[in-house]
């Protein structure tokens, strides 16, 4: 029986992705919802009015919140009860949107808090602003919301930098087309993840394993989708080629540098176990040896006459490196089944103890206080190299 999966879009970027998702026949098994403060975005999403929430209509008059976080928060907060009603029968919720503006940045945390109150697992797939095109404030706002509001509550978060578009799309591509492509890839990713997490009838990916990896560390991700018609003889190779050239993947380097990879194979009833195995092996060859590899394969009549390969390459945030060292034993526990032969003994990794070369005195061994990457327990005068004359011994 198909699980009740809800995909809820927040804000303008979310609604654009929803528009793409709605046009895909495979999305018919999903509950598609949207919330925004801008009426035009909701209309463009082509969802029926009963599946949308125009937040704070009387106050914002359906004209959006102009990028204001506080207005977005006020607007979405006023729709809490409607959000709760909309989500209450779901078993898994995908929250999609683009951070940096007003509605999604402040609204996604509210949606997550409502889902959390209803004890429904959530996976957040969000795009981050163009670092090179948009203002620094927007990027910082997005980063702050991601790290402080979204990561602590969502069961899994995939943060997709929009800048990846530059890496794979030809410079002469019209910007409208580039965004359309990005939205399409984004929508296909939602479909792929929902399919393997809930309906992977060949190889399924456990939701708990998936969330455990995404929650292990803060991350950014790259997404690659490749499709080929099912009756093509070399469909695996074609789909793989398309996947590697996918606009939101950002090139093969993204996979080779990934810390974790989620790979999925979707097809119709004609997809054989051999094809699935072949595709998964091809996918596995692409990833680094130490990366965590999760895979899933599913068939359904909704994927009639085509094969889709999807890859989500996850790069953990380097700022969480210390945490990784401490939790690497947990990570290792996932590896034997996924990435190494059962007969090969896995040598325990030699952990690097971050030994400090500076005396912290009585602060040694206490929980470190850090600010902008500095360990504030180390005396300030040492960190700033302030010169001292020095004490003199009394004779």
């Amino acid at each position, binding site marked *: 029986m198909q699980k009740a999966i809800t995909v809820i879009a927040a804000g303008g970027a979310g609604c654009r992705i929803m528009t793409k998702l709605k046009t895909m026949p495979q999305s018919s098994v999903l509950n598609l919802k949207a919330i925004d403060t801008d009426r035009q975005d909701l209309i463009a999403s082509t969802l029926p009015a009963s599946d949308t929430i125009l937040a704070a209509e009387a*106050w914002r008059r359906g004209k959006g919140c102009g990028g204001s976080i506080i207005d977005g*928060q*006020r607007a979405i*907060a*006023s729709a*809490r009860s409607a959000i709760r009603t909309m989500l209450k029968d779901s078993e898994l919720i995908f929250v999609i949107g683009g951070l940096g503006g007003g509605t999604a940045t402040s609204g996604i*945390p*509210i949606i*997550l*808090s*409502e889902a*959390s*109150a209803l004890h429904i697992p959530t996976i957040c797939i969000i795009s981050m602003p163009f670092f090179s095109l948009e203002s620094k404030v927007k990027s910082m706002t997005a980063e702050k919301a991601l790290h402080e*509001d*979204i990561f*602590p*509550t969502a069961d899994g978060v995939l943060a997709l930098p929009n800048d990846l578009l530059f890496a794979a799309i030809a410079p002469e591509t019209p910007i409208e087309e580039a965004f359309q492509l990005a939205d399409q890839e984004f929508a296909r990713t939602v479909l792929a993840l929902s399919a393997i997490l809930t309906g992977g009838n060949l190889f399924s990916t456990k939701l708990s394993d998936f969330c455990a990896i995404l929650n292990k560390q803060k991350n950014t991700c790259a997404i690659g989708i490749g499709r080929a018609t099912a009756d093509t003889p070399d469909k695996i190779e074609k789909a793989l080629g398309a996947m590697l050239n996918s606009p939101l993947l950002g090139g093969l380097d993204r996979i080779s540098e990934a810390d974790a990879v989620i790979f999925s194979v979707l097809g119709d009833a004609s997809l054989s176990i051999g094809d699935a195995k072949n595709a998964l092996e091809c996918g596995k060859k692409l990833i680094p040896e130490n990366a965590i590899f999760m895979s899933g394969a599913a068939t359904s009549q909704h994927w009639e006459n085509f094969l889709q390969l999807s890859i989500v390459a996850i790069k953990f945030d380097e700022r969480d490196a210390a945490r990784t060292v401490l939790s690497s034993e947990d990570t290792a526990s996932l590896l034997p089944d996924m990435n190494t032969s059962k007969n090969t003994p896995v040598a325990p990794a030699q952990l690097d103890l971050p030994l400090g070369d500076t*005396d*912290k*005195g*009585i*602060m040694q061994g*206490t*929980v470190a*206080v850090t*600010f902008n990457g500095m360990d*504030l*327990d180390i*005396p*300030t*005068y*040492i960190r*700033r190299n*302030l*010169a*001292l*004359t*020095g*004490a*003199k*011994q*009394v004779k």
Partner: protein
Amino acid sequence: MVHNHNIVSAVEFGTSKITLLTGECTNSAAPRIIGYCTIPHNGVVVKGEIQDMEKAEELLERAVKTVSDDSGIDPAEGKILTVLVNGCQTASRQGIGTAKARSGIITDDEIFAASEEAKVLNLAADREIINSATTSFLVDSRQVLNPRGQSGTELEIRAHIVHAVSSRIDNFRKVICRCFDTAECDVLFSPLASDIGILSDKERDSGVLLVDIGAGCTDYVVEFKNGIWSSGSLQLGFEHVANDLSIAFSLPVNTCRQLLANGKLNAEIENNSEEIECINNSGKKIRIPMQDILTVVDARLEEIFTVIKHNLIADKVPKNLESGGVLTGGGAKFIRTKEAFSKIFELSCSVRFPADADGAVTEVKDPAFSAVWGALKFSAEKFMQTCGDPGSRNRDNWHNRWKSVVSNFKDFWASFKF
């Protein structure tokens, strides 16, 4: 032993001392202090976190016994008890809640519903909300001071929410509950307690930055237009200053603590001394240039205030805080602290202590006791709300409305001079 049912208490587990303050609720403005005990310790609480539960319990039991013996009143008989916290990975943020007024008039029900909704935050599972304070009311998007009785269809409340890691907060609760043989105690975030303890309504309205610098932690709160704009606690304090001096000049850390705490360094600075004589870790007498000491101390103090300033900028705190800065806490007694404060924040600065602390105990009129005095006031106000006045609000409704304490204090303070 005298039995008195108007007894309230407040406990502070500081990095340098554990303090128990017991007071009696009267009909006057603030509680009357009837018992006090402060026990210095070393390492039981570090950076606002309990390191040794058994030792903490033992020290608190000693404090309870001392207060009981000195005052003839057993603090454990009191009904309301507040414990201060500032470690526990405490964090604060602004929340927004709304409620529809079907009758067209805002009543207590809408205020309660909106307040509760403002507290629905996306917190990690291991965290809990410990305090919330209403900062502003909007009725149909129009800002009002008091929404009760206003005509309108929608009430919006903005609230300052403080949350912390539950398991660490539970450590404080456990120690308190064992020593006081009670099932519950209120937890109050230290900066909010200092706010209650020493700020006036006028300052809260015109805008003020309060910094409470203690041994292990430095707390701050910004009030503007009678609402809390920002609050926080850094796990940095005078222990870091003492530690820096200890490392810089190879001095025993206790020597450095005494230099800072007993006024010796203050006196040397005021006397324009060029050197200070100390015994170093090797037992040898050394002379340290005053300029070196000030370089080490000033660098640390300025850094602490710079981190706070950074946080205030991130919280978009208004620059026009007309009442300037207020400095309190044990560290405020050190004269360079005030200078560093003014230099970094570019605000006027006054050092404040609990001037309205009333009763037999005079030691409390010291900047080091601002927070615990505020916590006692908090306990007293809660007592008046729940037990003192038959017309008072329901206890559960009141429980997390810290702001209502402030509102009610406004009435008290209207006729009260600091």
